């Protein structure tokens, strides 16, 4: 796990502007580059009180997209976000039907993980089903538990696979493989879906 402090990188507790966000994006990529062997990068917003949606779009969220595209094995978690930043993220991600994981970073521990944003209904159903398991779970198991018992029905099964893969691609779930089967678990244990 690698932690990048937004306050240390910017020296600011109020962050606004799309162009200014691009400046942080460059700093984030540069700061993360030596640590690209990690599987989790925590963007720590401690001491940052305000960040506008434009700023977040061109900085932290652009960084998340950059990793999803260039280093798909690395997940990004937002830590210690203020109420104001949470509101901006909800507004921004709600418009895009996207979500991310936010939590508290205490020492080196990630606590109170919470889904921030908005997911399509069936993705949310899939996420809740994964969260209900204490151990990593595969699409087939979830399909059966959800009543999609006709596992032979390739269509339904594929839907569950797609939902889980999409949640993993967004950095909400962690994906691991055993043989040809993929197993999924929340990126941070104890993830809550919020409202």
């Amino acid at each position, binding site marked *: 796990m690698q932690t990048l402090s937004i306050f240390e990188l910017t020296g*600011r507790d*109020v962050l*606004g502007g*799309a162009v200014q966000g691009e400046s942080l994006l460059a700093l984030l990529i540069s700061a993360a580059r030596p640590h690209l062997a990690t599987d989790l990068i925590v963007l720590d917003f401690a001491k940052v009180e*305000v960040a506008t949606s434009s700023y977040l*779009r061109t900085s932290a969220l652009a960084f998340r997209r950059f990793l999803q595209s260039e280093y798909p094995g690395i997940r990004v978690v937002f830590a210690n976000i203020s109420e104001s930043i949470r509101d901006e993220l909800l*507004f921004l991600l709600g418009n895009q039907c996207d979500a991310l994981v936010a939590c508290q970073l205490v020492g080196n521990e990630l606590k109170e993980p919470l889904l921030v944003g908005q997911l399509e209904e069936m993705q949310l159903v899939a996420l809740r089903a994964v969260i209900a398991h204490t151990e990593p779970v595969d699409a087939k198991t979830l399909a059966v538990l959800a009543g999609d018992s006709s596992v032979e029905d390739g269509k339904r099964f594929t839907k569950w696979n797609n939902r889980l893969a999409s949640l993993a691609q967004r950095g909400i779930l962690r994906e691991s493989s055993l043989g040809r089967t993929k197993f999924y678990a929340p990126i941070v244990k104890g993830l809550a879906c919020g409202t």
Partner: protein
Amino acid sequence: MIDNAVFDELMLDSALISTQQLAVECTKLAPQLRLSQAIEFHFLAKQQEHIEWAVQSIQSSPFSSMLIDSQKCRRFEDNPILTSVSPFNFEFLRCPIESTMFADTRWSSFCFRIQQAAALVGLGKRFAQGIVATMEELVSNAIEHSQCPSSAIVAYQSTDSFFELVIADAGEGLLASLRRAAEFSGLNSSDEAIELALRENVSRFGSGAGRGNGFRQVLRNLEFAGCSMRFRSGDAVLHMNHAELRNQMSVATNYAGFLMALSAFSSDFG
């Protein structure tokens, strides 16, 4: 200090413009001009190629040296390094035009002085932070959308009883900018353009692009903040007080660009 309504009336009188009486009037008024009014007049005079007005008419304004300095098109990196966190009576900065310049301490300390100045007049910390965030949004907009980022300036005026923040550019203005989006190509007045720009998710990239939310930080708290905003672009001026849009009017004097002023009096906070 001149009320904005009086200033708007002056701008409304096209006869004054055509006879250059505006310069004479503004010279008389200069000592009482608010910072935003002085900047608006200065930009107007420059746009109409009446540079002599721009200099002469504001010589008796308390902001004269600052505005005359701006004639030299001072670059951001030529500004003195000021790390003071205490606000000055008034201050002016030509906006950075490259993203890397925003990491400069000259910029961050300037932003912090604006926040402190807003707090000094009685605006709450959260709202003062929102003002700085909005200012940064408008600076970014000037860089991205105005077509003339080098003209953009940020200035504030700060006393114990009054605070004003001004962001202004001499670019193409809101109407021309929004018309670049196909869905807004039919817009035909600057009044409409300003009103649209204040709505969420409206930008020259269209309403579905998830952009155009620069005013969110201020507007969602304006109702409770006890301050007013004035928007000027093209031939339109709009006032907003306690989140209510009012005094919408067209003025004769065309302001090529965009100007936003946010002002607050300590008397509004008891």
